[in-house]
């Protein structure tokens, strides 16, 4: 597992690793696919422990968002550190994803 997970009501909170790059993005994608196959429809990605994300990680998030949308689900992100947020903004992903400043706020997604 490249993340840990917690169920809060109908929301599945996925706590991501310190670093998400091409070396672990594939494993992350496979693990998330399993979560979606289990029928989880609301996924909140907790970035509070994440210091780095590359385009490989963005690719996983985009594919997760596309997959959950097909089943009427929803994906949101929370607690992005400033440098990580900068990557999202540079990629225009802040327009695609709902980003909550804190994960407590995200629980109301």
């Amino acid at each position, binding site marked *: 597992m490249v993340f840990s997970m917690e169920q809060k009501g109908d929301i599945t909170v996925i706590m991501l690793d310190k670093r998400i790059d091409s070396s672990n993005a594939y494993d992350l994608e496979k693990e998330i696919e399993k979560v979606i196959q289990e029928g989880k429809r609301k996924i909140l990605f907790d970035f509070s422990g994440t210091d780095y994300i590359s*385009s*490989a990680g963005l*690719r996983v998030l985009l594919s997760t*968002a596309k997959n959950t949308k097909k089943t009427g689900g929803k994906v949101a992100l929370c607690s992005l550190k400033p*440098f990580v947020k900068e*990557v999202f903004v540079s990629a225009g992903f802040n327009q695609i994803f709902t980003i909550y400043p804190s994960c407590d706020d995200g629980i109301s997604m």
Partner: protein
Amino acid sequence: MKTCFHFSTKADIENLPQIAGWLEETLAGAGVGEKDQFEIGLAVDEACSNIILYGYADRSGTIDIESCIRDDELTVTIEDAGKPFNPLEVTPPVLDADIDHRKIGGLGVHLIRSVTDDLFYEYRDGKNILTLVKVRGAVGCG
């Protein structure tokens, strides 16, 4: 003053964190600010990922990295003997498409461009040579 450091590693996807660790240690040791470290680190990681996943997709090889630190500028030169690939020719992604139409292609190179001030590419003697240039931020903030 200019100080340069060199690192060479097998082009294996598992080695990306090792490259990042070396660069971070080198830059932090030379007093480069955290923001500059993060941004040049992102550019190097994206460039090396492309080399490993595409340039060396059908062969094994090495990646040679040289990082040079000046008072006002960072340059990182990355060399590989994989397939010729000029990142400057990659079409920029459409950033304002909605989620259904959003494609991920070209995002790595877009990120490289967004965090560097200049990029140079040449293919010479069977090698891709990519040079990333970043103007350093103000001391203490950069």
